């Protein structure tokens, strides 16, 4: 197993280098560029374009830009003041040494920008996922053991609806109902806040934090609940029809023990693999949720960077995201082998 993991990790590095090339090419070759006008200006003045190209390192050919992105430019002479003379060494270290450059938009280090947003996204997405799993598991089990019951049919209907309802619509309706229409009967304030992490970030107030979580978590979790409960239902149905379950019942074990000790533990194995594969969501966040509920997270950072063609941010989020996906796959494989003794990786 150890050798297997090591081999997979080495493959991961190779894969990431290949991906870095593809992502860099895709981002840079996509139509449009960071030198188009922003915000109030439709265009950037020609004089400013020249200055920006030099300051942002866009004046060099793409292969050179890629090399600098990977390994930095602190080992090569560059022309900093635009007089055509190579006058000093660069300051970039490259992503191999953990330097993802600086944002074109804010001129802040990319990792600072990501560092400001990532905790907020992890905060929301872990709670959303945990909530989804907590709700989905009992629903999945009940639907399976009471297959075709009224409960099962109702849950199935809602599951399909849950997967079909777009988040941006559901989120708006949630805000309309719980923020605009319903009022707190005691204070007359809106029942729930429209968005943000807290009313006052400096002061920790548990109820306020929970109140700010309710709408984004509910909106975000609905699709996951539907997806996981459907998955567990079918996985559970597979398991309960196995011979060993019949054997367990035949030898007189109580139904509850059979269900939870024999059936559920096996039915959860594929779900856990699925959860591991969904881990990148925890890093990336959900764009509609973050926009609607004014949540200062990664998805909004990425979206803004995509609109502004802020290449360093885009590339950092993409490459870190890719690493997460590869890593999640590896975790899924390992966890799968760990949970199911029949699986062996040689």
């Amino acid at each position, binding site marked *: 197993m150890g050798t297997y993991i090591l081999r997979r990790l080495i493959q991961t590095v190779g894969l990431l280098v290949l991906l870095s090339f593809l992502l860099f090419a895709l981002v840079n070759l996509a139509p449009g560029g960071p030198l*188009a006008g*922003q915000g*109030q200006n439709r265009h950037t003045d*020609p004089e400013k374009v020249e200055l920006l190209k030099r300051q942002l390192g866009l004046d060099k050919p793409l292969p050179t830009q890629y090399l600098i992105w990977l390994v930095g430019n602190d080992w090569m002479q560059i022309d900093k003041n635009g007089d055509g003379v190579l006058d000093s060494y660069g300051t970039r270290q490259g992503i191999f040494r953990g330097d993802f450059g600086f944002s074109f938009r804010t001129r802040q280090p990319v990792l600072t920008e990501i560092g400001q947003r990532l905790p907020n996204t992890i905060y929301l997405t872990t709670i959303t996922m945990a909530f989804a799993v907590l709700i989905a598991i009992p629903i999945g089990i009940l639907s399976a053991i009471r297959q075709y019951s009224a409960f099962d049919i109702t849950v199935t209907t809602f599951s399909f609806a849950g997967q079909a309802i777009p988040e941006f619509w559901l989120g708006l309706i949630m*805000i309309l109902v719980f923020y605009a229409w319903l009022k707190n009967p005691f204070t007359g304030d809106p029942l729930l806040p*429209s968005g943000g992490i807290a009313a006052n970030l400096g002061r*920790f107030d548990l109820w306020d934090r929970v109140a700010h979580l309710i709408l984004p978590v509910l909106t975000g979790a609905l699709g996951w609940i539907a997806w996981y409960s459907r998955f567990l239902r079918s996985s559970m149905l597979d398991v309960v029809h196995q011979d060993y379950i019949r054997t367990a019942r035949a030898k007189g074990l109580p139904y509850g023990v059979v269900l939870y000790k024999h059936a559920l533990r096996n039915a959860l194995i594929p779900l856990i693999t699925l959860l591991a594969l969904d881990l990148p969501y925890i890093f990336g966040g959900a764009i509609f949720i973050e926009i609607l509920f004014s949540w200062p997270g990664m998805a909004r950072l990425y979206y803004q960077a995509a609109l502004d063609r802020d290449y360093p941010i885009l590339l950092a989020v993409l490459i870190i995201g890719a690493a997460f996906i590869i890593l999640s796959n590896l975790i899924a494989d390992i966890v799968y082998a760990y949970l199911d003794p029949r699986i062996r990786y040689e």
Partner: protein
Amino acid sequence: MLRSKNVSLVLLVVLITASLLGCQSNATSVPASDEKNITIVIAEDPPSFNPIIADTGYDALVMELVMLGLSDIDPDGNIFPELAAELPTAENGGVVYDEATGGMTVTWKMRQDVQWADGEPVTADDVIFTYDAIVNPETGGWIPGIDYIDRVEKVDDYTFTVYYTSVYPGYLTQFGREQVAIWPAHYCDASQGFAAWDCARQPLSDGPFVLKEWVNGDHMTFVRNENYFEDGKPALDTVTIRIVPDQSVRKTMLINGDADLDMWTTEAMIADLQNQPNVSVDPSPTNRWVMRIFFNLAEKGTTDAAATPHPILSDLKVRQAIRAAIDVDTISKEFFLGYAKPVWTEFFRPPYTCDISRPKFDIAAASALLDEAGWTDTDGDGVRECHGCATAEEGYKMEMEFITYSEFGEPLELTQQFIAEQLGKIGIQLNLTVVEGSVLWAAATDGGIEQNGNFDMDLWDDGYAGIDPTDFIYSYYSETSATPDMGYNFMRWINAQFEELLNGSYTLDEAQRQRNFCEMAQILDQELPQLLLFTVVNADAHSARLQNVRSTTNDLVTWNAADWTLK
């Protein structure tokens, strides 16, 4: 191996860790209830407090709360001094024209009662420090007209002189307006460079408010500057800016009383807020953004109108026919809810207004113009072909691509479709494309559609900031600007007489400038390189309790935040 107790434990740990992770912030005190606090909601974080770097509008919005420039412009177009004690003019001896060199010197006298929030005075040293930072070739920035400046010299602590190599009519607001603030020499770290220095994110204030806290993506908190030079101002204690990306959420917050100001309120939102008792919408007295059609006078994919003229649009009669076939009033009423104001010349707002008669919407006249130009439909497919036209081969179909940009949203896309329908009625077929602005306007080297001439007709909005149109006109209509990446003359329209008038408008003689501009307006009206349609509204919605808010096209709505009061 997998027990439910363990699962619960893991989940509990996840929840606690997650909530701790999400709690990173500096401490904020809770404002007392008798304090005068307001909340502004905006769609995205400002990149910094320095609009020269990214110019998103949001940077200027927050800059106006905390920083001062030498001068600014009010909503009616009057320039007023901020850090300056008075505006230098030829009459008061502040501006001296040097006939021998063709240059001019401008001597500014500064107020002596303005301090930074730390008690240090704002002096000429700060101005020179700011200028030096901007022109640093390594780390600096660029502002219009900066290339006309030879040097800036200190006369005394509160006086300095700017030496121009030629006449620059926009000198009065060059170091002010929504664009340039004067930065503190003793606080900003020059070695970090103008484009990236920390003081543009944690500024030292000399304006009405002081930045207290900035939680990226969430909010910014400003408190009143106790050292602000205007007595008794600002009246507000705290200004909170909340980042609320979704427009409908911002609208609901305004209606619910949780927000006091929304900037750049759209036409649809103004209409929705019309009957809300606790919300007012304040349109600015003049508008800036003119929706317009750009005609590519060069053949699609080329950039020289003389060498490779456009087979359809290089014919003036065709452009005139298109102008006559578009019903601007209906567009305003149907898609812009009546807030779009018809405009047909660049010189439509003070101080430079020219008397150009409004073109008539007349489908029959449009058809007649096309017939006259040799474009007729002989095969009965509803699209005209060239039969004796001067610009294309016999049988060439009158079919073109019509592009607009996506960020503006539904009203513009409906306008695009409506124009295509109207031109369809006179036998011009337009194929519609909607692209991102960053693709349409990108540099030629980045594959920009317009810079490379890869379009026939484009529809989007622009207009000059401030009150001086000279640089704007230069960048759209001058010969130099017709070269890819040298400007925005995507029409590749070159006119010697216009060029002469434009060069002549770089003068301090206001009467001469007015004359030149109106002659230029005549030429543009006759030649029609661009077809100007209407202005879009410039308005900011605010709560009824927030008083003295004045929307303006000459700056951001926070330009007079020091005067805001609460009812």
